[in-house]
């Protein structure tokens, strides 16, 4: 629905009641990242801890959600269980269109239920149901039960957590429609702290098209660009998993807890191998014709003779890097098994893999033993990792509970901080060099998607910190605009600012279209302001020694350059996030 304000449903889990609020700010915040920041600014409590029931869990879509292809993502914002600061995580699935057709620009959840609960919202629905019988159930089992409990197959989204979220692990994700995730920074625990096992969003409303003749032809033009050209080929062909071989070739793939940046036997887990041997089919987020979600096929003999079961597991570059390359697990089916185990527990697979890579090296170095890990960890031992992932999800003992708060927390206690692969949070799958390391370590989401630092490392020569930081800040601003719409970042080469303005005008947001640069800057600054207000100190972010020992195709990483980048970027973050006078 096109309107010059935000229509927000605010639900208090303690009472099971909610209210629709009409909030101004469409022309200044756009939606998505901008709307989430606005809502946290008004409804969040920077000085209180993340577990405080009053803290909001925010889901926000943008002005173009559902109106154009690949406008198919949701921004989830919360005070992070990982660092107790303001955080965003993004996901697709059917959540974005479901929120659109629930007629909500945002859903804000506060309070805590007495018993494990499921929140159900739609354009004509608001209920909080007790679901104590789902507590402790895996993500997959929970999804299966909920699918049969509610109407709307195909036109709804089911968000749920696994045991990791219930146990308030900072590595817990929110699973979205089985194959997508609000993965990072502990969104699952933010739900768990509210006793909220699941959120069902019913997309059951429809809207008149915007007036005027511009909309439908513009849709067709963009749809044609996305489907009839080769622009999106890499996403639906091998998918992001294609990066495994590419990065390995240029010595930029983090392997074996980043002890090295390429693996001789990488062929077992390249995107090509996954496609040849495991790919069952592709699927898509609602509203996106690209179909980048790759589902691998896992066949398991559970009984002799010839009794098999099968599972479908989604894979991408990042999960393969984390539970494959980082653990030296180089068989695609073993990687899928690990991914499936992490999915079941409701763990973010990237964080879990990097955490266990550290635990393995810490075991090698004698800092911890099987007394802590319960099962001896050895690089390449997939069977042990299956058990370890389960222990991590369940928080099986003090060690796993501490590791579940983040690798660095465990390293501070047991030793081994210098080889903990943490850049703000567990690293992403790029060892391209200084700019990426600093970009993730200081980035707003500590994500490889905050800005293209990995691309800068690969393209730019020279080591001028100011130029690199200029790039990061500008690129972040462009991405903030996209995540305020909320576009999939895979469409960033299509949705440049001019086209976004044209789209906004076509649906009736003419004012917003005129001021996109200002909006992007405002949202970028506002996010940093909130982040700093909730405790972020960019200057004190520690980049562990392991990153300074990395050797890429460009040679050894330059620690001094990295230091100057961190100083320059910290200064820019301070400038962007300075308090409003």
């Amino acid at each position, binding site marked *: 629905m096109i309107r010059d304000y935000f229509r927000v449903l605010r639900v208090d889990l303690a009472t099971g009641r909610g209210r629709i609020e009409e909030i101004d700010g469409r022309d200044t915040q756009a939606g998505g990242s901008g709307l989430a920041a606005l809502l946290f600014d008004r409804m969040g409590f920077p000085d209180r801890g993340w577990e405080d029931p009053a803290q909001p869990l925010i889901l926000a879509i943008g002005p173009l959600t559902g109106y154009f*292809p690949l406008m198919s993502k949701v921004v989830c914002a919360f005070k992070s269980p990982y660092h107790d600061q303001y955080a965003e995580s993004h996901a697709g699935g059917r959540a974005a269109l479901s929120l659109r057709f629930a007629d909500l620009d945002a859903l804000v959840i506060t309070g805590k239920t007495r018993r494990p609960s499921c929140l159900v919202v739609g354009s*004509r629905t608001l209920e909080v149901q007790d679901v104590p019988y789902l507590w402790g159930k895996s993500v997959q089992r929970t999804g299966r039960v909920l699918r049969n409990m509610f109407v709307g197959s195909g036109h709804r989204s089911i968000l749920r957590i696994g045991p990791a979220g219930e146990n308030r692990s900072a590595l817990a994700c929110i699973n979205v429609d*089985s194959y997508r995730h609000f993965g990072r920074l502990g969104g699952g625990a933010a739900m768990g702290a509210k006793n909220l096992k699941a959120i069902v969003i019913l997309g059951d409303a*429809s809207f008149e098209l915007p007036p005027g003749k511009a909309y*439908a032809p513009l849709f067709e033009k963009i749809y044609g660009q996305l489907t009839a050209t080769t622009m999106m080929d890499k996403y639906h062909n091998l998918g992001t998993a294609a990066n495994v071989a590419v990065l390995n070739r240029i010595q930029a793939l983090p392997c074996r807890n980043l002890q090295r940046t390429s693996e001789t036997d990488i062929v077992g887990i390249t995107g090509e191998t996954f496609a040849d041997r495991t790919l069952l089919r*592709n699927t898509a987020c609602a509203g996106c014709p*690209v179909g980048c979600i790759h589902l691998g096929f896992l066949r398991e003999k559970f009984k002799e003779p010839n009794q098999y079961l099968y599972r479908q597991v989604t894979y991408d570059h990042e999960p393969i890097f984390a539970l494959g390359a980082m653990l030296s697990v180089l068989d695609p089916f073993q990687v899928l098994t690990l991914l499936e185990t992490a999915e079941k527990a409701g763990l973010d697979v990237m964080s879990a893999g990097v955490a266990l890579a550290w635990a393995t090296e810490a075991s090698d170095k004698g800092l911890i033993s099987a007394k802590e890990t319960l099962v001896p960890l050895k690089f390449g031992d997939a069977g042990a990792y299956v058990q370890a992932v389960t222990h991590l999800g369940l928080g099986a003992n003090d060690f796993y509970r501490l590791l579940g708060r983040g690798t660095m927390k465990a390293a501070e206690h047991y030793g081994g901080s210098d080889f903990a692969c943490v850049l703000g949070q567990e690293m992403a799958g790029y060892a391209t060099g200084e700019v990426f390391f600093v970009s993730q370590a200081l980035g707003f989401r500590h994500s490889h998607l905050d800005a293209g630092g990995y691309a800068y490392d690969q393209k730019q020569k020279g080591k001028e910190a100011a130029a690199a930081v200029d790039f990061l800040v500008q690129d972040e601003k462009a991405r903030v605009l996209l995540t305020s719409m909320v576009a999939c970042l895979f469409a960033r080469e299509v949705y440049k600012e001019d086209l976004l303005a044209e789209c906004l005008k076509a649906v009736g947001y003419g004012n917003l279209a005129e001021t996109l640069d200002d909006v992007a800057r405002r949202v970028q600054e506002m996010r940093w302001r909130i982040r700093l207000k909730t405790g972020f100190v960019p200057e004190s972010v520690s980049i562990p020694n392991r990153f300074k020992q990395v050797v890429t195709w460009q040679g050894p990483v330059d620690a001094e350059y990295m230091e100057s980048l961190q100083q320059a970027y910290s200064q820019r973050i301070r400038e962007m996030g300075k308090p409003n006078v």
Partner: protein
Amino acid sequence: MVMKILSTPRMERCIGCHSCSLACARLVYQQLSWDKAGIRIRSTGGLSTGFEAQPCLACDPAPCALACPTGAFGQRRGGGVVVKRKLCIRCGACAAACPVDAIYLDPAGEPFVCIQCGRCVEFCPHDCLEMVEPPAATTGDASLPEARP
């Protein structure tokens, strides 16, 4: 001229993007919707088992047209229905008569059904949909009695 009908011969390829439904709603019904459309997609028991369409099968004779008391739904040559929305009294008889749940009734009871125009076809990125000539009519053997319990 043969009036073609919409078929869904390759739904195994469907990725669940809903582009077909959204196109129908946008181009035929001037709506932003994945419900108010002549074709709708749902998962076949969870996303892990793939997707199925809920299209009109272009019956001839069409039970929905036979059930419509006001002539809003009329028989289309080649199968399916011609819809005259102004005549509709929103009784829902069409949806109740449809054997494959291909007619969506909005909350006000207004029916949305495929009109066999094929505009959705070009929006399917995996070529799941196709306009085809209708099969030969199966009028049945009039010499046999109707099977009724």
